[in-house]
C-alpha cells in the first residue's frame, strides 16, 4: 500500500460527520470541495492575470493601464470586463455549425482545467492534490494536448476561412510541440525516478541546491527548452500565430464574443498557469523554498497538527508565487518579441527543440549514471538518489567485488 494511504481522504473525513444513512453524500461533498477549490484557483488566476497583463503591458509601453475601476490600481477592471462579457449579445454566424461552435469553448476550458486535477500544491499529508496519480506528469501532458480540440472545432465551426486557417495552424503547432515538451518534462522525471509529482517535489526539499534545475547542466538547459515549448503549446507570443490579430483578426476566435470568448481566454490563462506550476514542481523545487525554512522552523509533517498544516500552507504559497513568476515571464515575452511565422514555428520545433531535448536527455542519462545524486550532491551525495542509481551508500566506503576479495583472501 502506498504510504499516502495512512492519511484519510477527504471523503473519509467528511463521512465521519455524516449520519449513517447519508454516508454516500460524503463522496459527493468531497468531490465538490476539490472541484470548487480548483475552479476558484483557475478562475481567479485567469481574472488576476488579465488585470496583471494589462498593467505589465502598460508599464512596458510607458503607459498606466487600468486606473479607474476599483481605485487607483484598477483591480476591479477584470470584474467589470467579466460582467460586460456576460451581458454581450450571443452572436452565431449563419454559416457556423451550431453544435460545434457552441461546444468548442467548453472543450477548451475543460481540457485546460483538467490539468489541475493532478497538480499538487503542497507536499505534506500525502500531497495537497485533488487526485494523487503516480503517473501525474503523463496525465498532465496527455490532458494538455486535448485543448487543441476546442481550437479545431472553433475554427471549423465558425464557418469562415480565416478561422479555419487559424485553427489549422494552431493544431499543427500544439501537436508538434507536444513532442519536445514531453521530452523536456521527461528529464526531471528520469532524474527523480518517478512520474508522481508529489514525490518529485518532496525530493527537492533541502534548499535550492537540491532543485532539479541545478542537478546537472543538462537539466539546466532543459528548463529553457521546456520554457520555449510551454510558451508554444499555450499559444503565447512569440508563438501566438493562431491569434495573430494583425493578420487574421483573431484567428480561430474571430467569430467569438461575450462569454464564449471569455472561456477561451480563461482556458489560455489557466493553461499558462498550469504549465508554470508543472515547471515549478519539475525544476524549481515546487513547494520547497530556496532555503529549508519550514524544516528550521519545525513546520514539517513529522511535527503533526497545526505546524504541519502551516508548513504545507507556506509551501503552497511558495509554489503559487513561483508559478506566477513563470506567468509573468510569459507576459514579458509576449509584449517584447514579434511573432514567428508558422513555418518558422515548425522549424524551431523540429530542427531545434527536438534535437536539443533529445541531446539533453542523453546527457542527463549519462550524468545520472556517472555522477549519481547531481552536481552538488556529487560532493555531498543524497542518500536516496545514490541508492536509486546504484552508487554505494554515503557512510560506507565502496565495497570491492566479492570475487576479488575472495581471491585476495585466498592467496
Amino acid at each position: 500500500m502506498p504510504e499516502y494511504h495512512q492519511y484519510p481522504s477527504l471523503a473519509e473525513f467528511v463521512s465521519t460527520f455524516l449520519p449513517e444513512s447519508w454516508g454516500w453524500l460524503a463522496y459527493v461533498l468531497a468531490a465538490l470541495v476539490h472541484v470548487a477549490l480548483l475552479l476558484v484557483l483557475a478562475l481567479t488566476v485567469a481574472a488576476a492575470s488579465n488585470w496583471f497583463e494589462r498593467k505589465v503591458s502598460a508599464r512596458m509601453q510607458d503607459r498606466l493601464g487600468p486606473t479607474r475601476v476599483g481605485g487607483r490600481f484598477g483591480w476591479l477592471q477584470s470584474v467589470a470586463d467579466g460582467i460586460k462579457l456576460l451581458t454581450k449579445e450571443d452572436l452565431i454566424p449563419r454559416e457556423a455549425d451550431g453544435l460545434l461552435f457552441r461546444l468548442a469553448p467548453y472543450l477548451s476550458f475543460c481540457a485546460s482545467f483538467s490539468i489541475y486535477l493532478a497538480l499538487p500544491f503542497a507536499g505534506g499529508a500525502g500531497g495537497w492534490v485533488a487526485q494523487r496519480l503516480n503517473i501525474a506528469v503523463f496525465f498532465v501532458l496527455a490532458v494538455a494536448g486535448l485543448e487543441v480540440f476546442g481550437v479545431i472545432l472553433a475554427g471549423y465551426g465558425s464557418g469562415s476561412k480565416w478561422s479555419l486557417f487559424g485553427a489549422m495552424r494552431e493544431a499543427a503547432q500544439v501537436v508538434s510541440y507536444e513532442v519536445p515538451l514531453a521530452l523536456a518534462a521527461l528529464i526531471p522525471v528520469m532524474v527523480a525516478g518517478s512520474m508522481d509529482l508529489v514525490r518529485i517535489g518532496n525530493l527537492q526539499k533541502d534548499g535550492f541546491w537540491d532543485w532539479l534545475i541545478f542537478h546537472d547542466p543538462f537539466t539546466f538547459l532543459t528548463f529553457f527548452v521546456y520554457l520555449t515549448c510551454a510558451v508554444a503549446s499555450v499559444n503565447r507570443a512569440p508563438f501566438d500565430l493562431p491569434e495573430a490579430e494583425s493578420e487574421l483578426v483573431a484567428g480561430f476566435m474571430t467569430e467569438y464574443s461575450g462569454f464564449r470568448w471569455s472561456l477561451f481566454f480563461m482556458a489560455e490563462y489557466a493553461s499558462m498557469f498550469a504549465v508554470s506550476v508543472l515547471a515549478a514542481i519539475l525544476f524549481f523545487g515546487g513547494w520547497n523554498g530556496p532555503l529549508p525554512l519550514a524544516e528550521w522552523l519545525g513546520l514539517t509533517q513529522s511535527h503533526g497538527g497545526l505546524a504541519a498544516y502551516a508548513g504545507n500552507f507556506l509551501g503552497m504559497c511558495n509554489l503559487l508565487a513561483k508559478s506566477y513568476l513563470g506567468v509573468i515571464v510569459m507576459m514579458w515575452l509576449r509584449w517584447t518579441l514579434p511573432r514567428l511565422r508558422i513555418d518558422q514555428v515548425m522549424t524551431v520545433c523540429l530542427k531545434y527543440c527536438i534535437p536539443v531535448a533529445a541531446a539533453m536527455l542523453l546527457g542527463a542519462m549519462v550524468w545520472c549514471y556517472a555522477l549519481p545524486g547531481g552536481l552538488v550532491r556529487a560532493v555531498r551525495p543524497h542518500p536516496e538518489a545514490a541508492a536509486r542509481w546504484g552508487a554505494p551508500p554515503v557512510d560506507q566506503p565502496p565495497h570491492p567485488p566479492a570475487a576479488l576479495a575472495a581471491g585476495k583472501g585466498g592467496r
Partner: protein
Amino acid sequence: MQICWHSFFFLLVALVACWFALAVVVSSNIVRMALYLVGCLGAVAGLFFLAGADFLGGLQLMIYVGGTLVLLAFGVMLTSRSQFVSMKTGAAQWVLAVIVGGSLLAVLLQGAFSVARWAPPDALAGDRPPQSAPTAGALGLGLVGVRPDKLDQEQERLREGMAGYLLPFEVISVHLVVVLVGAAYLARARRRIAAATRPDGEPPGSST
C-alpha cells in the same frame, strides 16, 4: 441507503461511451462524427481510469484522443466537401450493419457472461482501493527488455522469454515508418498530361 460510487460512475461513463458510439454511427455529418468519436474514446479513457489502470487511461488520452483523433478531425475538417456534410446511409447498408454488429454483440455478450470470475485472484483477497493497482513500472521495464514479472513464475518452463518486448517494439516502429512512407507515396496525385502539344504543333486551348 448506500450508493456504490464506483459502480455509479462506471455505469455513467459506459453509457456515455455507448451513446457517443451510437451517435457516430447514426450521425450524417462527418465532422460531427469525428467529434462524437472523440467523446466515445474519451469515455473509454475514463473507463480505464475507473478500472485503476491510470497509465492506460493516460495513454488512451494522449495517443488516441490527443493524437489520432486530432489528425482525424484535421483531415475531416479540411477535406469535407458539401456531399459529406450530410451522409445518408442506405437501407440495405443499415440491414447489413445491424446483422454484423448484432452478431458481434451476441458473441461478445456470450463471452463476457461465460467467464466465472472476472477479478484477478489476489485482488479479491482484500478490499484494495483502485489507487494502489499495479503501476506501469513492470510494463516500462518490459518494453526495454526486462520481464521482472517472469521471475515470480513458479513453473520453470514459464520463466523463459525474459528478453521482453524490445525487439517487437522496434519492428513495429519500423513497420509504421514504412507504412507511412508508402502511404504518402501512393497518395500522390497522378494526372494525365493534357496533351501538352497537339500533333500539328498547336498548343491546346488556343483559338483563332
